[in-house]
């Protein structure tokens, strides 16, 4: 493989002044919309589609890709500063990132997130350049059975996300799964749990749920307990990560990058799992897992790296097979078709300049983003010095407008209030929302894949065991289950002993 030749072809195309400019515009715009809670890249890319009619195909793709990964960088900023996850991937960043901000360590959290993302972006870009076609073939080996087993593993990982009672975490996962089932059943077309409302027939919007459970609940709690408000505790000790921070973070970044790169390739919801599973992995192998959820820097570094790596490698199915792995990628397909580039395996051979140009522009874009974001860290931290009573109405406004803009439906804004109420109930009962959210994301996938696998096998449940990849995931799930259950049992026995 002539990697160097390909890369230099790509750089030659991506480094033209015009393409550099579009890359910068995309990265800037992406950061901006990523920072606004609730406003995602989908609405923005859709808005820009007609403008791309006039650009060259390469410039259009470079700009749209820039918006996509720029939004990943920006999204973590809001998650860390105000506990608002605008994308499923930044939910986990809230857990420890926001705690770090409350301890006055927003600076190090933001800086590690940016640096970790940059490193992951570089590695993932290299992986795409080296292995894209091979990996795409691997992703095709995943049928419904494989995905179902992967989802089982993901749900067990959700239980590990919680720092309190295992049993309550399991309850929250199941509650999340049930909430995920609201809407039209894919297999039968039947409406479930919709109370006759058409607004619910496509399910509850993720952004509304996440904004309600995390953001709105946090605001209400902060107002009920003024002493918890961020500006009270935020003595900004130092802006940059210390040596100790770097030492703690570099291995999690490596592991997160690896996990994210692999899961990002899977088009059927794999990338969703990247940040969650990276967090779970760190917590499982940490010497002191109890630090997680209380401001552990590993809990920011690993998921952020995984998330960005996954965001990059999720381009692989698109570029090599023409199969979009999420809504943003589906928009990219639209943009490519407008340009007369049929996304698919032949892009690489027929339009090498385009293919390699997009890939190298990803690396350039990541470099721009890290240069752009590091100086911004100081500015974001200063934002926390705005008195809380002025800050929260602004957060609420951005959040409400953002959620509305996802599908231009005021009903979704009402759902934020409902989930704010539920989030408050969970808080007062000591139930953690993160496992619920993961259950909510994975629930519909899990049922869909399970039923599809059984439909295809005509009801033969052994497919999950006879297909090697699926079997591998199930074995891994069993092992993870063992590590969750064993300590709980030990505790139970000790408790029983004390009682007697």
């Amino acid at each position, binding site marked *: 493989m002539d990697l160097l030749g390909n890369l230099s072809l790509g750089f030659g195309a991506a480094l033209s002044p015009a393409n550099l400019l579009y890359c910068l515009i995309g990265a800037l715009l992406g950061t901006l919309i990523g920072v606004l809670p609730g406003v995602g890249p989908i609405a923005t890319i859709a808005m820009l589609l007609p403008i791309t009619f006039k650009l060259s195909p390469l410039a259009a793709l470079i700009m749209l890709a820039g918006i996509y990964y720029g939004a990943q960088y920006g999204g973590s900023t809001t998650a860390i500063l105000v506990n608002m996850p605008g994308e499923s991937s930044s939910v986990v960043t809230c857990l420890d990132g926001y705690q770090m901000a409350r301890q006055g360590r927003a600076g190090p959290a933001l800086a590690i997130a940016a640096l970790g993302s940059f490193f992951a972006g570089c590695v993932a870009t290299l992986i795409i350049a080296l292995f894209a076609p091979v990996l795409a073939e691997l992703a095709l080996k995943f049928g419904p059975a494989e995905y179902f087993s992967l989802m089982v593993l993901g749900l067990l990982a959700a239980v590990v996300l919680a720092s309190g009672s295992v049993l309550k975490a399991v309850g929250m996962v199941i509650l999340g799964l049930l909430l995920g089932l609201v809407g039209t059943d894919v297999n039968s077309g039947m409406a479930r749990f919709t109370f006759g409302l058409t607004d619910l027939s496509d399910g509850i919007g993720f952004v509304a749920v996440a904004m309600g459970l995390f953001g709105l609940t946090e605001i*209400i709690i902060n107002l009920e307990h003024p002493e918890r408000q961020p500006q009270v505790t935020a003595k900004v000790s130092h802006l940059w990560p210390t040596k100790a921070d770097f030492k703690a973070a570099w291995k999690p970044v490596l592991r997160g990058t690896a996990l994210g790169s692999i899961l990002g390739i899977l088009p059927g919801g794999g990338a969703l799992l990247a940040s969650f599973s990276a967090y779970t992995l760190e917590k499982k192998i940490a010497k002191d897992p109890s630090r997680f959820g209380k401001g552990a820097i590993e809990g920011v570094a690993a998921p952020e790296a995984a998330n960005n790596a996954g965001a990059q490698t999720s381009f692989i199915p698109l570029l090599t097979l023409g199969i979009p792995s999420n809504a943003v990628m589906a928009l990219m397909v639209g943009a490519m078709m407008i340009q007369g580039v049929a996304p698919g395996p032949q892009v690489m051979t027929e339009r090498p300049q385009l293919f390699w140009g997009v890939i190298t522009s990803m690396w350039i874009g990541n470099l721009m983003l890290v240069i752009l974001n590091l100086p911004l860290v100081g500015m974001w931290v200063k934002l926390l010095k705005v008195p809380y009573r002025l800050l*929260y109405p602004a957060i609420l406004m951005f959040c409400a407008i953002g959620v509305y803009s996802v599908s231009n439906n005021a*009903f979704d*804004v009402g759902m*934020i209030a409902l989930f704010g109420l539920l989030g408050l109930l969970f808080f007062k009962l*000591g139930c953690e929302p993160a496992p619920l959210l993961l259950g909510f994301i994975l629930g519909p996938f899990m049922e869909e894949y399970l039923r599809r696998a059984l439909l295809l096998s005509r009801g*033969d449940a052994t497919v999950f065991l006879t297909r090697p990849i699926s079997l591998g995931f199930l074995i891994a799930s069993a092992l993870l289950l063992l590590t969750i259950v064993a300590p709980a049992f030990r505790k139970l026995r000790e408790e029983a002993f004390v009682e007697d």
Partner: protein
Amino acid sequence: MRHRIRNSQDFWSGVMFMAFGGLAMFLARTYPMGTASRMGPGYFPTTLGGLLALIGLVVALRALRHPGEPVQRFFSAPMNLILGSVLGFALLLPFAGLIPSIVVLVVVSSLAGGSLRWKTVGIETALLCLVATALFVWGLGLPFSLFGPR
């Protein structure tokens, strides 16, 4: 720790799980179940609802034996005001347009912050209306009507 009350967080968590599980099973009662090998739309919800109720039962029973943290007061003025302001925004937006909805959202939610300073709230409301219009309507070109229905 033996003196802690029995009506603990865990007990009520268990009750909540049982309630949600029961509700799910109740709502799913009319959905066709199918069989394990060819599941109908009712299979997953009913099974999960039952499982959730069961977990709720175990959590609640364990809480009766092991006293734990008490539940804090649930309703509060900030809660009502914040939730109300968001609901108000949602209800107003389709009829009144973006600007009146923002005014309601910002003013009502500001009431939750304790002592209200009308001047600062006024300035902030005006500023946010301007930012939202510039950013979302002019900048990103989102389809909003500033005043009135669309």
